[in-house]
């Protein structure tokens, strides 16, 4: 599409081993691409060339010594700006953290660099990951590289756009209600939300702690699996990361999919689903059937309540998590006559409209007299939504749905109506609430050339199975369906 060479992780490795390019030259090539494309896309907020070239030199030194390369050696990677990077500005797309430079690395970042990855820089996102279009960034919207007058999705829109435009081989995003999968679908690349607890959240600047997950974007499913293999696993610094062994995803994806039972919940194909998206996803399911999967009709009766549940749970947690931005320890401070006055002025000036809206909603839902009616009730409905999934996984190996009800919408189309924007996440928030893993894989394009995403959910810790189906789907031509 746009990239002169579509680098893959395997391609980087073989080029390095054959000495066709050095890691430093490769990093330079990607910075040249960024310099050329980023002014129109606005995918990157900060670049970290010193760090990238130092890492590239380390990889080149390993090569020069004739030692074996680590799994992501020399692979240029972009990082969503809500993930802490030591010495590299991390704003979360917010004015309140405009000058914030984290003193430590997130565990996922440590693991990527230990595996040889080269961190190019930080990507644009909706402020504190709150949004579905990346238009809520305090640093300007991101454009979709497939169609520049459309949004890339959100909130990890910068990461999705960077990979789709060939400005990074892979990227990390975060997904709280769909913020990896939905931009993956809109930009036409694979995008994975791992199981809650599969990837450490240490160093992820919190939005909603019971929902937030770090996960990868890449140009193909094998690369998605390769990044997952590096970032997954228990971390003593995150007590909500699971002590569940990580399988060999590269081996898992090669397993045959014949005989797998794929559940298709009718609740995801009703009112609000765009006709072209529906036709493509139906064609995608038919392709999986031709590959030997058995289609099982499902009912997941609480699907329709997921957005309402999500916008209570997520905003309640956000109102608590974002209480830390008060002008005392880091970030913006606006002077005030008293301590409280300083808090109020700092937060008024530092937060954008969507963040304030969600803090207000969450504070309301948790406030005296409303807690039972909103938060407690939402937590109970969350149990029902999780039960829809556990019941389904008694009968099926995976669940197939559209990732989003429409293809990428136009910039500005939904900014005036927050509720309409929230409904862009209607098929993704369910899995977020249940804690299960999901991937979006490209599933053809609309007549206007806009990518459609097919979503695959698996049971807890079955990333291997989800990736295996996605890989078979991709190999069988799913992206061109």
């Amino acid at each position, binding site marked *: 599409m746009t990239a002169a060479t579509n680098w893959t992780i395997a391609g980087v490795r073989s080029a390095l081993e054959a000495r066709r390019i050095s890691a430093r030259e490769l990093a330079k090539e990607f910075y040249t691409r960024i310099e050329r494309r980023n002014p129109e896309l606005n995918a990157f907020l900060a670049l970290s060339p010193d760090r990238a070239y130092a890492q590239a030199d380390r990889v080149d030194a390993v090569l020069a010594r004739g030692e074996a390369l680590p799994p992501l050696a020399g692979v240029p990677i972009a990082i969503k700006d809500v993930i802490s990077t030591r010495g590299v500005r991390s704003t979360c797309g917010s004015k309140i953290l405009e000058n914030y430079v984290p003193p430590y690395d997130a565990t996922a970042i440590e693991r990527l660099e230990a595996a040889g990855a080269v961190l190019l820089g930080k990507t644009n996102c909706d402020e504190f990951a709150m949004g579905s279009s990346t238009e809520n960034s305090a640093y300007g919207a991101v454009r979709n590289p497939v169609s520049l007058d459309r949004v890339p999705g959100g909130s990890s829109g910068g990461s999705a756009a960077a990979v789709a435009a060939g400005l990074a081989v892979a990227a990390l995003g975060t997904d709280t209600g769909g913020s990896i999968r939905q931009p993956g679908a809109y930009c036409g690349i694979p995008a994975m939300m791992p199981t809650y*607890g599969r990837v450490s959240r240490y160093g992820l600047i919190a939005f909603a702690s019971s929902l937030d997950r770090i996960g990868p974007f890449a140009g193909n499913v094998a690369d998605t699996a390769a990044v997952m293999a590096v970032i997954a696993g228990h971390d003593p610094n995150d007590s*909500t990361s699971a002590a569940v062994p990580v399988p060999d995803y590269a081996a898992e994806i090669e397993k045959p999919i014949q005989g797998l039972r794929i559940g298709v919940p009718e609740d995801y194909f009703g009112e609000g689903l765009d006709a072209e998206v529906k036709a493509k996803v139906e064609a995608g399911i038919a392709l999986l059937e031709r590959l030997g999967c058995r289609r099982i009709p499902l009912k997941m009766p609480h699907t329709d309540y997921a957005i309402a549940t999500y916008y209570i749970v997520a905003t309640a947690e956000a109102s608590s998590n974002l209480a830390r931005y008060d002008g005392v320890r880091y970030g913006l*401070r606006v002077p005030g*006559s008293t301590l409280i006055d*300083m808090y109020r002025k700092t937060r*008024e000036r530092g937060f954008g409209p969507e963040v304030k809206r969600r803090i207000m909603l969450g504070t309301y839902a948790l406030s005296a007299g409303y807690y039972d009616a909103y938060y407690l*009730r939402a937590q109970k409905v969350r*149990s029902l939504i999780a039960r829809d999934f556990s019941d389904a996984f008694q009968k099926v190996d995976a669940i197939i749905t559209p990732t989003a009800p429409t293809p990428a919408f136009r910039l500005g189309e939904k900014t005036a109506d927050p509720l309409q924007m929230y409904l862009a996440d209607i098929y993704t928030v369910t899995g977020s609430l249940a804690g299960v893993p999901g991937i979006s894989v490209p599933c053809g394009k609309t007549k206007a050339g806009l990518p459609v995403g097919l979503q695959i959910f698996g049971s*807890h810790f079955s990333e291997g199975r989800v990736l295996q189906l996605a890989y078979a789907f991709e190999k069988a031509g799913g992206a061109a369906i």
Partner: protein
Amino acid sequence: MKITREDVLRVAELAHLELTPEEVELYRGQLDEILNYIGKLEQLDVSKVEPMAQVLFTGAGAPAAALGAAKEHPELRDDTLRPCDVADAILAQAPEAAKPFFRVPKVIDR
């Protein structure tokens, strides 16, 4: 109308947000619409449902060995002290610091 101007002001005070008059009116309308939509949760009978208090999955279906049969909560580490010498780096981020403290406006008048 579910949400009043007073509700918005009360919540803004709880959340330490100093809203402009325009914001008060904007959020009143938007929160009203969103809460109306959220009202659909009242259609469900949840009287016999437990709230979801734990997301980390440790239930049936996960391989027993994987969850560490010997230890009930393998995610939890021992409570031992480890060096953490980032105080200088953290204070360097502060809008106003007076080592080893953060400085804030005077809280107590006497």
